């Protein structure tokens, strides 16, 4: 590859005097022009950087970013040299985000696909409403993480705050450290050899080995999947028959 090709395939974008609007327009234009990599200088914690991008490109933010970095993305590779604000990778469909720092609240909220790595701690509600993406946090996660998770995978190498996986529908969570408490309808499951293999595959790209951690698995207990009627005399619960329940409600 000669120097000219190198120049056309990569670019540097200095945000110092640009608005969010201009930054995103330029990122779109660079991706559309076939630029493969762009280094973004002075992101200065702006919100909504690189949102809604769907043309493949690698974006390297040289510094912290604000809310929603990479949100609504589809097939873009993003790396942040620094921390990020709320809802990084929100509603991600495909692609990858690597945060080399801490992430604030709601990391990977409602993300459908792709991978989000937080190489640090993530705040409250990490992986909230997760719908199929993989979120890997090498540090700790805050309270309410994986709240109403629907599908996907959350791997936490550190500790998890209170109410982990509250009201989870489906998906799987692995925690190496201490779990402060599980939320409603979450339960510990058995770790299988397949799980260990998978954890190894997920962590190896980060230079980590799953065998160095004592992972616990959390899954849905499915007690909330259907409304239940309590049978108080014997303390047991039963699931209503789905076909004819509720018809008498008014």
């Amino acid at each position, binding site marked *: 590859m000669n120097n000219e090709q190198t120049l056309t395939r990569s670019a540097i974008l200095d945000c110092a005097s640009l608005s969010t609007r201009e930054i995103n327009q330029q990122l779109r234009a660079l991706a559309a022009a076939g630029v493969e990599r762009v280094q973004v200088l002075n992101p200065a914690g702006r*919100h909504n950087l690189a949102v809604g991008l769907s043309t493949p490109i690698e974006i390297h933010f040289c510094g912290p970013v*604000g809310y*929603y970095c990479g949100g609504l993305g589809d097939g873009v590779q993003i790396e942040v040299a620094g921390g990020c604000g709320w809802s990084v990778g929100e509603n991600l*469909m495909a692609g990858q985000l690597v945060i080399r720092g801490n992430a604030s609240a709601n990391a990977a909220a409602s993300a459908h696909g792709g991978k989000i790595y937080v190489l640090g701690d993530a705040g409250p509600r990490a992986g909230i409403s997760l719908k199929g993406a993989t979120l890997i946090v090498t540090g700790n996660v805050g309270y309410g993480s994986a709240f109403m998770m629907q599908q996907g995978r959350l791997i936490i190498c550190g500790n998890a705050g209170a109410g982990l996986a509250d009201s989870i529908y489906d998906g799987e969570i692995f925690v190496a450290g201490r779990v402060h408490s599980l939320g409603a309808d979450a339960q510990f499951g058995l770790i299988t050899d397949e799980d260990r293999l998978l954890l190894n595959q997920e962590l190896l790209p980060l230079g980590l080995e799953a065998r160095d951690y004592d992972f616990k698995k959390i899954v849905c207990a499915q007690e909330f999947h259907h409304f239940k*009627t309590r049978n108080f005399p014997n303390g047991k619960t039963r699931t209503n028959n789905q076909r004819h329940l509720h018809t008498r*409600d008014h």
Partner: protein
Amino acid sequence: MEKRVLTTSDTFTPEIIDAIQERAELGRYLIRGYGAFRSVPRFDDLVFLTASLTRVPLEGDREPCATKTILGKRSCKRPIELDIPITIAGMSFGALSRNAKIALGRAATLLGTSTTTGDGGMLPEEREASSKLVYQCLPSRYGFNPTDLRKADAIEIVVGQGAKPGGGGLLLGQKVSPAVAGMRTLPEGVDQRSPSRHPDWIGPDDLKIKIEELREATDWQIPIYVKLGATRVKDDVKLAVKAGADVIVLDGMEGGTAATQSIFQEHVGIPTLPALVQAVEALQEAGVYGQVQLVISGGIRSGPDVAKALALGADAVSLGTASLIAMGCNKPIYLEDYHKLGTEPHHCHHCHTGLCPVGIATQDDELMARLPVEQATIHVANYLQALVMEVQSLTRACGKSNVHNLEREDLVALSLEASAMAKLPLAGTDFIAGQ
């Protein structure tokens, strides 16, 4: 023989006794479709003062009476242009059958207006059927994705719904078919209880950033609506405006749903009439009346309802339940299936069961087949057309050539409650209750 007199308690009425015993059987709150059943002050409590000597009427059905409506003038490049001031409200594929969603889209297209997705994503057939489609962004984010976002003509961020402000959606397992479960990324047959808060933002300051995100993702092309369930209307409208909404959609407590706790429907939120008045005042106080448009919904049924809403300051109205009734909801056909649900035509609100006798609120293929798309389309289109004619008739009678020129001075109230809530004089007096 001694005559027997049945006495009824006003506290423990037969309905209350039934409700207590049903809770005793179920061990949970009661769930049903539709909105508030209780009687509340409504548009029926207002009447028009049409033209006589002080004003000159226009000829009914002859002289032009404009109905064009533009939503989203504030900050986007492509506001929504509607031929009529009536839109179709958000109702999900899941709550409604595929045929019902397609028919709503086609009918709206025939009348040059918009329809809206719902809590379950954008059905491809719905997009195809709808010339103007509003894409809802709800707390659940079921099926929400950037590809469909870019196909939308407007985005509606749903904060609340009139039937259940403060509560999330419900879709009971009977309706979570393989297709619905697939679109929502949920286990098939699960009793789905949607969240009441958005996963990625919480307060109005966050909402401002969320709105910017959606604008960036759509290149600032299309309007962003914020839908509110009517509770603390003045504050909520001002906060939504401050957050950057182009359009406020406000849903009063008469607004319907396919399923929620009946306690929400009857005991939460305020009626559409006072909600509308408060929203207009909020927009005026915020200095954005005319820039930010207001769409009102919740129990709108007739041309007079629409005309009165416009006269009180709405830019458009949105229909949900009424559009379903137009296509056959509660029609006296398939009586045996109403009876299986323990109800009768004109009384059915059993959308939550998935056993809709007329094929509207169901995911059962056999039931859905009872709703031919063509027939449903024509019925909804005819109904919308009739409403427009009624609004135009009232507008011309008030001496106006544009439905948006209807104004508060064209109305008076028939009850003290309506006078106080609408801040209009009681008919035949200069008295405005509470002022």
